């Protein structure tokens, strides 16, 4: 049915037709025509007002990661748009489908340095999968359909639509939402090449020490079951990257844990000692390979990925298979020969016995952050969703929480964005209002988007924040501790002007922490809890769970605790530092 509609009406109508239930955003002058329509259609589509555009971007991201649906984020021109940048780049690095819509100054003013004008299409070219400037209202319906299609198919990613205000106000006489998409430059290969899949089966048959290396692509393509079936059929040990935690059962006998800089020894030894890596939806990030020239010296590599550009980018592979992980694994499964357990499985099982993740509790009176994460896992229901900030908190959350299903862990893996966790948790809570959504945070990261506590409260989104407060920007402090002669420069969050120069020794004489997180939470109408003793941890978590609204739990933890195991930067991944018991 064709209708006469304004650009703003078309936008909102198209979003609803694409199944958008919620828009995260922030208004501005050039977006008023759009907000005028949203006002009328409040019943059909929810608008969540973030307190900062970066927050809105991460909320849309958390929503998309948790639900698998396309997130939608709306921001105004100029500073509104530039405030999205970190959020867009975060989504781009982790292949998260989001459609960003930015208001733009009137077409006639573009290029004149108009008030609140920024060339956001130019600025975001290298951090979006694709972007559009709407020049003509006739193109608008096609652009929105294409944006959703591009964002959600192939290797997903963010797409930005820059939407000038005159187009929002213009009228299109014969609007109908397109049902067909034809983009001649965009045809992702979903089916893997038959020959390559057969070659993969041969490689597996010849291998005596295979390892399956699974990345975020497994979660995106819903390939968890196929992955498990393959692993069990060929009895190959499995390692899952940070982006794939939850894609393979962590209590499975074939599971080796996470690989890389802070991975388990089992996973790293597994990759280094194997004769075949079957990589599924992973991209050999430098945090995983360590020194590339020493990585997996005896392994042949099969690389299954939907993005051809990820294949042989870092590591030369022997068999590239370009296709969707689930499709390829399902085609591979029937033609691959079953393999029994062999000496390799025994070797890996031995490592699993000998090298468990561990930390000490007897080297300080202070509470250890790892314990807090373990207790969160023990107290929360199995279907809870965990978001993290970035740094030590992120790695402890990865190591000491047991993930049991895909999309359970929301973390900024590629870009490593501090300030991601709280807004991502809020977005996830919108998708799953009845689940517990927890942000495992550091005292540094949480302050980067703390303003979103207001959003959580007013929107009745009962996220629980667990701050592991060590008073430091802990991961950088850890590197300074281990590799820079313990020169704690620029990392102490308690440091004030009167402090000694070159201080690397935290003590009880230090200034007290600013802000007071409990009081801060209370000022947002959010419950604030503080805990610094082991035997109060469970009680604190249970109080937070029982509270019908957002909560900030502040856990005062050991100031100088380091994340282990650790592969020093630039080393091979079997050169591992660990804490002595």
């Amino acid at each position: 049915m064709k209708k006469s509609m304004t650009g703003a009406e078309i936008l909102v109508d198209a979003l609803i037709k694409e199944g958008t239930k919620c828009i995260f955003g922030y208004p501005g002058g050039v977006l008023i025509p759009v907000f005028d329509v949203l006002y009328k259609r409040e019943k059909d589509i929810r608008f969540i007002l973030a307190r900062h555009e970066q927050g809105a971007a991460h909320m849309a991201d958390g929503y998309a990661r948790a639900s698998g649906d396309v997130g939608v984020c709306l921001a105004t021109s100029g500073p509104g748009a530039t405030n999205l940048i970190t959020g867009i780049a975060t989504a781009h690095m982790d292949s998260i489908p989001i459609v960003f819509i930015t208001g733009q100054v009137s077409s006639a003013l573009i290029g004149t340095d108009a008030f609140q004008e920024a060339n956001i299409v130019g600025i975001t070219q290298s951090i979006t999968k694709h972007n559009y400037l709407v020049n003509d209202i006739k193109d608008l319906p096609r652009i929105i359909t294409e944006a959703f299609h591009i964002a959600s198919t192939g290797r997903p990613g963010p797409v930005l639509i820059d939407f000038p205000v005159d187009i929002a106000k213009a009228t299109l006489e014969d609007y109908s939402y397109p049902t067909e998409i034809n983009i001649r430059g965009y045809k992702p290969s979903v089916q893997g090449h038959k020959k390559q899949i057969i070659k993969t089966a041969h490689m597996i048959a010849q291998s005596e020490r295979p390892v399956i290396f699974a990345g975020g692509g497994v979660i995106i393509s819903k390939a968890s079951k196929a992955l498990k079936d393959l692993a069990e059929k060929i009895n190959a040990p499995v390692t899952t990257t940070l982006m794939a935690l939850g894609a393979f059962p962590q209590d499975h006998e074939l599971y080796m844990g996470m690989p890389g800089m802070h991975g388990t020894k089992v996973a790293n030894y597994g990759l280094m000692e194997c004769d075949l890596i079957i990589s599924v939806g992973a991209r050999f990030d430098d945090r995983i390979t360590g020194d590339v020239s020493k990585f997996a010296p005896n392994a042949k590599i099969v690389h299954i990925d939907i993005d051809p550009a990820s294949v042989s980018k870092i590591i030369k592979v022997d068999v590239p298979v370009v296709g969707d992980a689930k499709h390829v694994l399902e085609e591979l499964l029937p033609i691959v020969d079953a393999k029994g357990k062999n000496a390799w499985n025994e070797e890996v099982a031995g490592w699993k016995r000998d090298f468990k993740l561990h930390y000490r509790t007897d080297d300080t009176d202070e509470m250890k952050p790892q314990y807090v994460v373990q207790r969160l896992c023990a107290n929360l229901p199995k279907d809870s969703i965990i978001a993290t900030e970035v740094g030590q908190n992120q790695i402890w959350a990865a190591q000491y929480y047991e993930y049991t299903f895909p999309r359970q862990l929301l973390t900024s893996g590629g870009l490593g964005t501090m300030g991601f966790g709280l807004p991502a948790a809020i977005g996830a809570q919108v998708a799953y209002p009845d689940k517990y959504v927890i942000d495992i945070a550091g005292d540094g990261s949480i302050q980067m988007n703390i303003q979103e506590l207001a959003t959580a409260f007013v929107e009745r989104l009962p996220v629980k924040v667990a701050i592991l407060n060590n008073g430091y920007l802990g991961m950088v402090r850890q590197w300074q501790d281990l590799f820079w002669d313990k020169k704690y420069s620029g990392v102490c969050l308690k440091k004030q002007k009167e402090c000694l120069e070159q201080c690397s020794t935290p003590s009880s004489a230090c200034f007290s922490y600013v802000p007071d997180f409990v009081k801060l939470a209370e000022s947002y109408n959010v419950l604030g809890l503080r805990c610094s003793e082991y035997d109060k941890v469970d009680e604190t978590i249970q109080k937070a769970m029982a509270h019908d609204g957002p909560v900030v739990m502040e856990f005062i933890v050991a100031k100088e605790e380091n994340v282990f195991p650790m592969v020093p930067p630039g080393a091979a991944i079997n050169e591992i530092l660990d804490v002595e018991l």
Partner: protein
Amino acid sequence: MNKHIISVLVENQFGVLGRIANLFSARAYNIQSLTVGETEDPDISRMTIVVVGDKDILEQIQKQLNKLIDVIKVRDITGMNLVDREALLIRINATSANRAEIIQAIDIFKGNVVGIKKDSITTEIFGDSDKIEAFIEFIRPFGIKEMVRSGRVAIVR
């Protein structure tokens, strides 16, 4: 490190050149020359990009180009049975003593004199890159006042 000619068909649209240029700078690939113009289909432009790089870099360049939504087709046409041409416009120092010698060189290179002044000759030369290079090297001792090269265009026979 070899020179490669990559032929790219792109949507003839606002901003496409910027995207391609941005891709090369973002990934630190070096463009030696880039030409762009409409094809037989006015919706499609062809870019001829000359880059220097080893096999792995070339493979990545092609894959990254292919990832752009506005890119329709990418082909490394180096070594194929192709014609490639470049135009050179150049203004050369000239005196009454050496003017004849310069004009003779232009004739040998099948160029045309397109401007002449008391102290200079301006000429156009058309041909493959080797020919253009050879002409420039020959003429350099006379003194080059100003020159511009079009960049290479190429097509498979």
